[in-house]
């Protein structure tokens, strides 16, 4: 197992360097230096030269890239010129809020989706199953911003139950936790979409498991239905959902870009959006890298968790 993890981590390093190289090359193709963003378009040729030299943008691009990688090793993501702060400081400030938003939505969706999927499987082809399936397919086919817009119109603008966006009073992770009404719509939007996906997978997996001999055996030896479902079915049927949760890790920490923009929620997604609008490309590179790192780690985490949950799985 440890050898497997080390090999995967080494592969992850190569993947991240590759993503960094592609992102770096693309951004440098669009704008070789952020000098105009910093000094303005009226900067003199002399001032541009001086600034580029001071900040290393006069060096060959391969040297710039190697220097960037070296900084990454030291967790230095560069300086956000438009935000006038180090990128790492900005990430530290926003990561907690994004994690809270996506984490809460993820936990909430698991709490709803796992039992829902099992109940649908047990009561399959019943009116309740059909109704839940219809709702799930509708939600599953919906982009997050579309569902968010509908919820804003319905719950915020028409009924006035919740604010349509997160106000500026939410300035820290703690304040996000202490303002549940403000966070209701973004969390419920994310959670509903996850519920749709997770419960479909859960239902499908539970149907497969219900047909297995060990379930019949458990029932035959007189175990209660609740015991069958909770002790035998849940663990085995959850394996596919574990993979899905692993793949959700990037959105868990990198934030949900569209939801944060839609609800005005200050997290990593909104930071990236602001970085785009300000052409602050150190923020853009860092966000892309973070996404790559989390995707790789999420996959690894899912594999390890499956191995832990299913004794039949051997990593190697």
């Amino acid at each position, binding site marked *: 197992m440890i050898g497997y993890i080390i090999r995967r981590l080494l592969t992850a390093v190569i993947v991240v360097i590759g993503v960094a190289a592609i992102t770096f090359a693309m951004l440098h193709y669009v704008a070789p230096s952020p000098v105009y*963003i910093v000094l*303005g378009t*009226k900067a003199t040729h002399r001032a541009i030269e001086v600034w580029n030299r001071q900040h290393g943008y006069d060096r060959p691009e391969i040297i710039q890239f190697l220097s960037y990688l070296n900084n990454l090793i030291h967790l230095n993501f560069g300086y956000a010129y438009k935000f006038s702060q180090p990128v790492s400081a900005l990430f530290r400030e926003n990561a907690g809020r994004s994690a809270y938003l996506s984490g809460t939505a993820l936990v909430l969706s698991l709490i709803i989706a796992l039992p829902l999927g099992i109940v649908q499987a047990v009561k399959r082809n019943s009116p309740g199953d059909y109704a839940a399936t219809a709702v799930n397919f509708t939600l599953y086919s919906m982009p997050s911003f579309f569902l968010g817009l509908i919820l804003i119109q319905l719950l915020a*603008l028409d009924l006035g139950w919740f604010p349509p966006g997160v106000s*500026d009073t939410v*300035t820290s992770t703690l304040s996000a936790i202490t303002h549940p009404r403000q966070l209701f719509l973004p969390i419920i939007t994310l959670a509903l979409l996850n519920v749709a996906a997770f419960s479909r997978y859960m239902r499908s997996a539970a149907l497969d498991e219900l047909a297995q001999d060990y379930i019949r055996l458990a029932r035959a030896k007189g175990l209660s239905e609740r015991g069958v479902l909770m002790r035998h079915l849940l663990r085995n049927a959850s394996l596919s959902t574990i993979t899905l949760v692993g793949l959700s890790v990037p959105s868990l920490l990198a934030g949900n*870009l569209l939801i944060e923009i839609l609800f005005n929620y200050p997290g990593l997604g909104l930071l990236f959006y*602001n970085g*785009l609008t*300000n052409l602050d490309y150190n923020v853009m590179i860092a966000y892309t890298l973070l996404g790559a790192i989390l995707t790789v780690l999420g996959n690894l985490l899912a594999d390890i968790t499956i191995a832990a949950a299913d004794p039949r799985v051997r990593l190697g």
Partner: protein
Amino acid sequence: MRFIPESRSGAGRLWRLSGLVAALAAIAAVAVAATGLSSAKNTAKAASSTTLGTKVEDGTLIKGTLPKNGTPARGGTITIGQITGATPTGINPIIAGAQCSTFTFNLATSLFIPLYYGPNGASPAVNGSLSAAYAPVYSNGDKTVTIRVKPGLKWSNGQPVNAEDVAFDYYLTKAATNASPANWCQYASPTEFPYNVKSLTYHGNVLVMHLTHSVNPTWFTDNQLQDTNGGLYPLPASSWDVNSSGQKLTDWATNPTDATAIWNNLNTLGTNLSDFMNPLWQVVDGPYKLKSFNTVNSSFVLTPNSSYGLKPKPTATLDFNTYTSTTAELNALKAGSLDIGGLDAGTQLGAIPQLQRDGYSIYGGPGWGWFGGFYNFKDTTNHFNKVIAQPYIRGVFAQLTNEQAIATDIYHGWAVPTGGPVAPYPKSPFVPSVATKSPWPYNPAAAVATLKAHGWNVKPNGTTRCAKPGAGPHQCGAGIPKGTPISFVWANQPYSSSSTGVLESEAFASEAKKAAGINVKFATKSFTILTSDYNNQVPAGKQYVNDWGVNNYGGIFVDYYPTQDGVMNTTGSLNVGYYNSPTANRLMIHSISSPSAAAIAKEVSFFAKQQPVLYFPVPDTISVISKKVGGTTGAFLALTQQQFDASGFWVNK
């Protein structure tokens, strides 16, 4: 003198969406349309169904109804919307080029009293009552300017505001521009401020500037000292005269090195968002103090400055909330959580009936300046540089532009047609209305006749080509070979960023093709590319010089004294198409140096006739004000000029 490039869409949002953001916005727009929250259809329907009238008020054309002045209550909070990317990025009143935006200016004027404040309501003129000094007195053949700072003004630390504080700003500005012109966004040329001041003396509240040459007093007051609030400010010399180590440097007037060190310190602290709450910025003389600044989304809160020496005294706390999009801002207005916001004329007019039912006042007026597309006089593709160099061709383009239809059908009445650099509204105190009339009114038949008269083989709906090359009176023009088409690339912002800009361009292209066989090919570029790369005045623009024939990034906020100096002179920093006319250069110099009031009218008339850019209607800035908010009429009108007069708003009793 200063001009600020203005984005096409919304309330002066200078830096617009690009790339992925634009795509996301487009997706969101589709979703919004699908859900019925907003759509072009219901926008148009609502626009025609709303009963918002239009009337001339205080010299400008106001559509809708201004809010009532009301009676100020003590205290209360007014929430104000701002859009991501359209927020202040600097706090130092000596604003650098990279921080140059109306949003930064508005923060500066909320914290510091400009030496000369503008506008005066919607009128492009100095507002004496909100200025730190009395009107300047010119003498010695307009080579000497005497400025008297109003007595009784105080810094929030109790120190008096005096002429030394004005001199402090002057010397620091000079140090900044000496280091690099990019360090001061109002820098125009080595012959203008601060370099047209030979020397200055100050004592008590009186400061005297000795200029290098005679100037037009109106130009010097409005475009150099006032300069759309980017000009001079008294700054607290006794508190800010320190370098980055905190060492006191009191010889800034005589030692340029020390002045540079002080400016460096101010500039560093003033552009670093996390330093906005530095105690240094708490020493203010303006109506407000900065209470908090959110470095994540640039939201901020202002509280009244009890030391403010002018009237009206501020009473309310101002809470500036940042929204990720105009849609999010509109949602906040609908939910009643926002007191002052804006509407996008291209996409959000459909919300007006609901907002009116909710008690909001909605009104708009045209901004000072012009909108239009810059011609590229260096684009050699299809010999476009030679084609567009012909004044009659530019006149033909103007005659093919149906401005009235654009104002009515695309802006739904929230725009004012114009034919030159000075729009008919708001009325200019310096230009007679006759100079604002277009000498090239919409007339496709006349346009076609002009082309034929100059030797073009006109093919309506086809491709018109030059049939008679040559520089004679009935020939196409110098350097245009036989068979040359009138074809060029027109660069716009994405539709998601500027729907109106795209639509009006298409309106022109359609008319030009149908009536005169002129072929326009569209290209979509971000606002940043249009201002930074499609610009023949910057080194980065060289590689793109043949990529565009027209650059329609929006328009220009013109200085109150509406000379085009800086925009249309050959090396003007905003002359992105490299228009080059010795006559124009001469007229602009005359405008800024001659005391004659006729000079500026002559210049404006010249540009209206020459059409160095393709002028489009000037859109309104639309404001939405809740019934909770009262204020001075001037403050409400100033919003049409995207100027936030902070002391002019209050919570109603």
